[in-house]
């Protein structure tokens, strides 16, 4: 059987059709899509705002990290400490009670 025969047989196929009532089923879905509940509208609005805010927030975060990292240059402090804004730790800190520890001490000994 050559290609021409195959094409002839394929084209002899009856037209494909959906089961009756297809347009009704589509319109039911379309109409339910149109009648969106208010809660869903609120969620959509929030999502739109979020999507818009993400690039700006991301850009600001990167800028702050770069700014902090640039400030750390030459100070000798670990880069991560500077980026996270942690105070420098010195030997003296080990012998000093923090205000929080003092409060705890007061509670334990009346």
């Amino acid at each position: 059987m050559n290609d021409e025969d195959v094409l002839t047989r394929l084209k002899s196929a009856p037209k494909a059709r959906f089961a009756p009532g297809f347009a009704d089923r589509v319109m039911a879905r379309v109409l339910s899509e149109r009648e969106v509940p208010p809660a869903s509208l609120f969620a959509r609005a929030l999502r739109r705002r979020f999507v818009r805010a993400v690039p700006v927030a991301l850009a600001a975060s990167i800028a702050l990290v770069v700014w902090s990292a640039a400030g750390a240059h030459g100070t000798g402090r670990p880069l991560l400490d500077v980026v996270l804004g942690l105070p420098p730790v010195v030997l003296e800190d080990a012998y000093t009670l923090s205000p929080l520890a003092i409060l705890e001490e007061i509670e334990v000994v009346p």
Partner: protein
Amino acid sequence: MLDHSPDQELVGRSRGGDADAFRALVERYQGVVAGVVIRMLGHGDEADDVGQETFLRFYKALDTFRGEAAVKTYLTRIAMNLSLNALKRRRRLRQRLVRWSDPGAFAAASAPVPDPVVEAERSELIQWALGQLDDIHRAVVVMRVLEDRSTRETAEALGIPEGTVLSRLSRALKKLAPHLEPLRSS
């Protein structure tokens, strides 16, 4: 009663919220969409669902639909993409099922060979033969032969070069030939 307004007018009215106008578009093009999804997926709920989804996607895209492509071309493209996605999902599910069960038994159940004498139904035999092709070859046959689109339109809808359409069509016809042999006598 059928609305004989031009497509662009119906699209414009649908955009403005006229449900009857959109229904007229559905009634006008449901045959085109059926031609793609049923030939790709076979008859059944899945094809019906993909057909509905095609029109729903079109409805949601009405605001951005500029009419540069004809409604028919646009719907065909959505229908083909959704059908190919459905076939991928079906294949993944089948792989999972095969892993859990006896692969031989599943293969036999999923591809029943119709007896040409008993099942002389032409449509069923052609549908079965199409099912023997892989997705990319079936898509070309559906678009180029069954939907009678030009090679260029088929290439555009499937996102492949025209030369690829022709080579895939040639391979598909070779593969279909033995499966369609029983139609010679019917």
